[in-house]
């Protein structure tokens, strides 16, 4: 198992490649090469979409120095993607800050995870996980004798412990967790933001769906949770302020036993 961690987007990325090894003495060139490529892609997306950088393209748009119509094609496509998700979640997820500024950080991290996954596949790896600040996607198996990737969910009341362990496999390889107290700048404390859940975990076919829907559940509460479990093929578990859990049937099927 090759494990590689690096700092980007204000958080840490942890990559695990089950079909590769990295040690002081041996380093497979293909592993080093794809990890380099992947780090560059995270850096590129961060430079372009971070509102913490004055020189980023999105900061230029926010400042009014660059109109959206004149922004890069990629920027416009990512904005369209975020608006599409706003529509699908009845507005519970939104790329707009209360002050009107466009903020794509709610989707870009997941877009980067998705890109990293594709790069690893292209480099010939089949068994890996890409975890960015607690949101992850997986491929294949974590070991010869371990099907899928056994993944824990952190207890929001005690970040040092886990409340659940699930097995991510080909059908549901991606998982994202949002919290009401997280640093994540894409959950706005709008007047209508609910306090129904302190944490929401969504497991889906892809990381973008999982990440957006986890955010939407925190923002929209019970009503959004019901809408999502009805309309999307996802596994969901939520934690209420009193610590009680809710999960749908899909989630219960994924519990690692």
């Amino acid at each position, binding site marked *: *198992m090759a*494990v590689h*961690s690096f*700092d980007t987007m*204000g*958080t*840490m990325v*942890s990559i*695990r490649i089950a079909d590769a090894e990295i040690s002081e003495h041996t380093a497979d060139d293909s592993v080093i090469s794809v990890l380099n490529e992947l780090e560059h892609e995270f850096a590129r997306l961060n430079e372009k979409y971070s509102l913490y950088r004055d020189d980023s393209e999105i900061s230029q748009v926010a400042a009014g120095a660059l109109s959206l119509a004149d922004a890069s094609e990629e920027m416009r496509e990512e904005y369209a993607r975020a608006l599409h998700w706003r529509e699908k979640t009845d507005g519970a997820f939104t790329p707009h800050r209360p002050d009107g500024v466009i903020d794509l950080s709610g989707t870009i991290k997941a877009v980067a995870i998705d890109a990293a996954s594709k790069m690893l596949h292209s480099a010939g790896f089949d068994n890996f*996980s890409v*975890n960015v*600040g*607690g*949101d*992850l996607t*997986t491929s294949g198996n*974590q070991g010869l004798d*371990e099907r899928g*990737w*056994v*993944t*824990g*969910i*952190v207890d*929001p009341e005690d*970040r*040092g412990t*886990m*409340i*659940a*362990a699930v*097995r991510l496999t080909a059908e549901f390889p991606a998982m*994202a*967790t*949002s*919290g009401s*107290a*997280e*640093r*994540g700048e894409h959950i706005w404390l709008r007047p209508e933001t609910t306090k129904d859940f302190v*944490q929401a975990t969504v497991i889906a076919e892809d990381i973008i769906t999982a990440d957006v829907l986890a955010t939407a559940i925190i923002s929209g509460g019970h009503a959004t*949770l*019901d809408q999502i*479990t*009805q309309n999307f093929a996802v596994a*969901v*578990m*939520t934690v209420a302020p009193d610590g*009680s*859990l*809710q*999960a*749908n*049937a*899909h*989630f*219960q099927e994924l*519990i*690692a*036993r």
Partner: protein
Amino acid sequence: MRAGSAFLAGVGSAAIVAIGWQAGVGTLVSSLPQSQAAASGATTAASSSSGASSSTTADTSTPAATTAPVASGIADGTYDGAVVNTRYGPQQVQVVIAGGKISDVVVLQTQTADRKSEQISSRANPILREEVLTSQSSKVANVSGATYTSQSYIQSLQSALDAAGFTG
């Protein structure tokens, strides 16, 4: 009367065993003392109205304890157990006493219809913590949680797992 209450506590346990078997998983059953208390309550209250509609055996409206012979501890008849909440919804058993012994245990509420509708609607329902964390957690390779910063990563479970990955 002591013998009677002790016996009924036993009925409560029997009900729990039966429910556990019905649900297929032992962990689904709620706390034992609560069930015992409710089952013991049947001594004076006999069965509640909830059992009447499902019951096809005996007249459950007659308080059985008032006519209970002291020697056998409990009169023949049909007694409803406590309603126990499981992941599949409330479950209740009915215990038939014949000759002072349990002759039959009938499940009153299996909630089959509700289970089906829950699966169709895919709603998220309450789930117990014991049901989601299993022995498999020792094999966890990643953790998912609300975003940690670069600074807080060092204290995160993920950093511990990453460190373990380097050496093991």
